[in-house]
């Protein structure tokens, strides 16, 4: 039916697809559990101060209520245990609006939700730091980010033939995976089982154990299916341990799911950024300076700063460069990793500025980028393991019909619409992380089957499928002979599905495990072979019923010598309604150079996903804070507009072939993050090309184009 070893690279349909289309994939609270109680969190209604009193008498008397847990009766937890954002009922302090201040546990969800409404809280309120517009000027240098300087940008900017110095603003964005964070906590003696979505299975295990003062081996995370994460289920948040605490207190399994409205201030956010980008160029379009200064905010008690300047460090060749960050602590929940952290927002600023400068020089923006293509990584002088930006731009221009673009805006009118084309590039680092995997081979007669086990995560990324493909090829077994078990901390530890390291780390360790078990079978046979036999052949010829081995893989040391990143070029065609200012992205093309494409069907989907996120960033999504109260005015899915189906037009994905064995053994570079990078800039640039209006503050809502 097929040639040998051709699973990898084939558009195999998801092997977990049948579960997902029949409703049988078990997400966190879908796991069957006997006699659960239901927990509902209640939250602070001030942004800063202290809880003076919590009156929970009515709640406790409410029918079905089993417990009301607040800082007054919660067990002492280790607040440095690795749970993000605190809010685990350890003190009376309130640091942001919507902080968890208690949990009601009841026989039913309806009873718990109602009782939570009956709790009355009194506060001693303090003045809160909320208004970023006012506060950002007093930002300080982040703890872990020094200014990065090359050459002299001041002189270069002063002497520039052309320059752009503009500030680009992005709002607070929320991850909003469609599965809100939810947990079933079940104690079995001293052991705790947490059915809980986790992008980093072992990370969740360690954070829960450490916070609850348990040994990791007493905590098991079960997370076979994850209803989206996008960074919000990377680190774990207070709700996870509160579920465990509640289950302990009522001596029953507890289900705790956050309400959608609670997602705004429970599991992090992408912070608001003001990014000033200054570019200088010679009259023939050679960059001479690139300055990227980011002002952002973090939580009062903890710092997280997304690296908006990362793209600017490596995208273009310039002798003078400055990257800085300033951060303002505010009474808002701790920001965290959000799809394409730093790069998606940073590329909006950088790639908008590049477009602005190209327009000033009257140079095609593609030509302008090609002219400033760096031969090696400008930030550290290392050679690229691979970099296909030029191919991305050129192939994309060809496929998209870029030659039809008009240099001047408002030249392409279709009926009541202005039509515009935009381009922007993006990048994301490629890394492999330590991972282990066990492979088990079993034989009955001539039928050999394999089981792959590792604590990996599949949050829709296709992990199950690509690992079955990888193992099938490495063992020379049909893919249906492979069973993949992931998403369980009882399995060998593995990297998280974060920062685009998942596919690289998992596929490499699975491949290593397959190679190792083949070696072990050869050794066990005591024979010499002219041609290397396959594991399946050896199982049969040596009459071995079962065998297993474990591989522990690390990144290649030599990879350190290279700069490894995925790159892309994004092309957008927008139609702007001249009357209403409503923008539609009619066509979008992403051309990506991201190493080996393990499965073009799922890879394409992942790129589309990033693109849709980027379009949402550009056009529809925004979380608005009322500076008087510190609460999110956009407090539900009716106010926070994730793109709907009609917001998305025709999409196309092209992958540039790369054989990058310098990055890692299998030459995989990762797709989950890079897909969003550069997207919002491509859309904003297209809006400029359509309307002549340069929007430097996302999202581009209709009123900005009137």
């Amino acid at each position: 039916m097929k040639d040998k070893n051709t699973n990898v690279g084939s558009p195999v349909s998801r092997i977990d697809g049948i579960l997902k289309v029949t409703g049988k994939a078990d997400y966190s609270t879908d796991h069957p559990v006997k006699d659960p109680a239901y927990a509902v969190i209640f939250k602070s209604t001030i942004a800063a101060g202290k809880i003076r009193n919590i009156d929970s008498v009515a709640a406790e008397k409410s029918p079905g209520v089993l417990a009301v847990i607040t800082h007054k009766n919660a067990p002492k937890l280790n607040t440095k245990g690795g749970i993000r954002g605190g809010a685990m009922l350890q003190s009376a302090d309130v640091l942001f609006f919507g902080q968890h201040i208690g949990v009601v546990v009841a026989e039913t969800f309806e009873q718990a939700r109602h009782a939570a409404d009956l709790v009355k809280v009194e506060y001693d309120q303090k003045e809160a730091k909320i208004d970023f517009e006012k506060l950002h000027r007093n930002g300080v240098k982040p703890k872990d980010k020094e200014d990065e300087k090359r050459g002299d940008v001041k002189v270069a900017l002063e002497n520039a033939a052309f320059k752009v110095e503009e500030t680009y603003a992005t709002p607070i964005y929320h991850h909003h995976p469609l599965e809100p964070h939810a947990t079933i906590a079940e104690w079995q003696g001293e052991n705790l089982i947490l059915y809980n979505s986790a992008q980093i299975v072992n990370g969740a295990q360690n954070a829960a154990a450490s916070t609850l003062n348990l040994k990791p081996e007493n905590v098991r995370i079960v997370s076979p299916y994850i209803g989206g994460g996008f960074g919000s289920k990377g680190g774990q948040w207070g709700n996870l341990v509160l579920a465990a605490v509640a289950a302990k207190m009522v001596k029953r399994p507890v289900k705790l799911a956050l309400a959608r409205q609670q997602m705004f201030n429970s599991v992090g956010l992408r912070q608001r950024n003001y990014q000033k980008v200054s570019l200088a160029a010679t009259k023939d379009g050679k960059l001479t300076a690139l300055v990227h200064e980011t002002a952002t905010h973090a939580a009062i008690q903890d710092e997280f700063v997304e690296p908006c300047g990362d793209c600017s460090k490596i995208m273009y060749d310039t002798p003078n460069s400055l990257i800085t960050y300033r951060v303002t602590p505010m009474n808002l929940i701790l920001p965290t990793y959000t799809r394409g952290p730093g790069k998606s927002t940073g590329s909006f600023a950088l790639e908008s500025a590049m477009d602005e400068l190209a327009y000033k020089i009257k140079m095609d923006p593609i030509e302008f980028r090609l002219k400033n293509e760096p031969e090696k990584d400008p930030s550290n002088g290392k050679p690229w393991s691979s970099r296909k930006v030029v191919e991305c731009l050129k192939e994309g221009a060809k496929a998209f019909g870029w030659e039809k673009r008009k240099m001047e805006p408002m030249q392409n009118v279709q009926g009541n619409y202005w039509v515009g084309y935009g381009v922007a590039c993006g990048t994301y680092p490629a890394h492999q992380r330590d991972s282990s995997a066990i492979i088990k081979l079993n034989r009955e007669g001539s039928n050999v089957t394999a089981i792959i086990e590792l604590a990996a995560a599949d949050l829709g990324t296709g992990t199950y499928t690509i690992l079955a493909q990888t193992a099938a090829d490495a063992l020379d077994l049909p893919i249906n002979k492979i069973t993949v078990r992931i998403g369980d901390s009882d399995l060998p530890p593995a990297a998280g599905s974060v920062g685009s390291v998942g596919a690289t780390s998992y596929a490499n360790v699975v491949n290593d495990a397959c190679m190792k078990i083949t070696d072990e079978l050869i050794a066990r046979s005591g024979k010499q072979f002219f041609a290397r036999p396959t594991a399946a052949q050896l199982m049969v010829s040596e009459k071995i019923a079962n065998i297993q081995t474990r591989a522990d893989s690390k990144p290649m040391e030599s990879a350190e010598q290279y700069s490894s990143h995925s790159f892309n070029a994004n092309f957008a065609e927008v139609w702007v309604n001249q009357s209403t200012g409503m923008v539609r992205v009619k066509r979008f093309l992403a051309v990506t150079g991201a190493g080996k494409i393990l499965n073009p069907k799922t890879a394409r989907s992942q790129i589309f996903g990033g693109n849709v996120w980027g379009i949402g960033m550009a056009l529809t999504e925004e979380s608005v804070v009322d500076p008087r109260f510190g609460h999110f005015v956009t407090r539900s899915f009716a106010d926070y507009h994730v793109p709907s189906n009609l917001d998305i037009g025709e999409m196309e994905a092209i992958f540039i072939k790369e054989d990058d064995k310098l990055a890692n053994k299998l030459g995989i570079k990762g797709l989950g993050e890079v897909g969003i990078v550069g997207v919002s800039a491509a859309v904003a640039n297209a809006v400029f090309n359509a309307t002549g209006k340069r929007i430097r503050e996302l999202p581009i809502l209709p009123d900005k184009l009137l």
Partner: protein
Amino acid sequence: MRPFKYTNAKDVPSALKLAAGNPNARFLAGGTNLLDLMKEDVERPDELIDITRLGLTQIKATGSGGISIGGLGRNTDAANHPLVRQHYPLLSQAILAGASGQIRNMATNGGNLLQRTRCPYFYDVAMPCNKREPGSGCGAMEGINRMHAIFGWSEKCIAVFPSDMAVALAALDAVVKITNASGEERVVDFADFHRLPGDMPEKDTNLSHGDLITSIEIPKNNLADHSYYLKVRDRASYAFALVSVAAAFEMKGNLISKVRIAMGGVAHKPWRAMKAEQMLIGKEPTEANFKLAANAEMADAKPLEHNKFKVELGSRSIVRALQMALNGGKS
């Protein structure tokens, strides 16, 4: 959500009787907004009277050549009924511009008119809101008010009414037929159905407790050839309007002989653009005339800190909707 008694009404008289017996009871029809608000602890009835089995779903021609739409019929059925599509496409279009396929399958025609505002300060019980809790203040006035009213608001309330369907009904001179708790029937002009906030923003409509909307009637008109419902929103679908316009007119020769314009997303009730209508009577349907009329209407707008754009957007939307109507709904 507070505990409540669920009662299934068998027929209209028993529904009315049940309601009359309990001032804290509410009728439950589609439930798409009521249950949403009960989960938020904004609505707090102690009894729900299920009225979905009362009938009152029929759509039929009236003796005077208009149409009668059952108060408990579903939005989907109203939008797709051949009589509505043929003679009142503006109404079909407005209904279809609202919510999603699923919600339109649930929501009833009467219930649609009783939607409460989507103002986030109304929805959030941690915030002040005179509509939810009279006397607590208006959170939006000094807060984030991009989505709020530019016409007819008061110091007490700047909320807007979210329905699309009602905007078309306002333009089509509909009347609402109501049976009260004592079984008496009355007919209310659409313009008098919803209220401006004034000093009593807690009252959205002129209904009393126990009133049941039995049907909505639209008189005969000849507006179907030139009508359009335009909805401007922050995403392409499944979002509430920033501004919407229901526009329809009748031509005699080259001149507009009758015109109806109503706006959504700009006031506490569907906003009939009377000034614009008056300016267009007897005029040619040109862009210049549309603009003059639209600007005249919007000249009276009183925008707030974050919604100044609605004045310009409103004006453009009126012009655009009229242009679309002129072209029979095609761009």
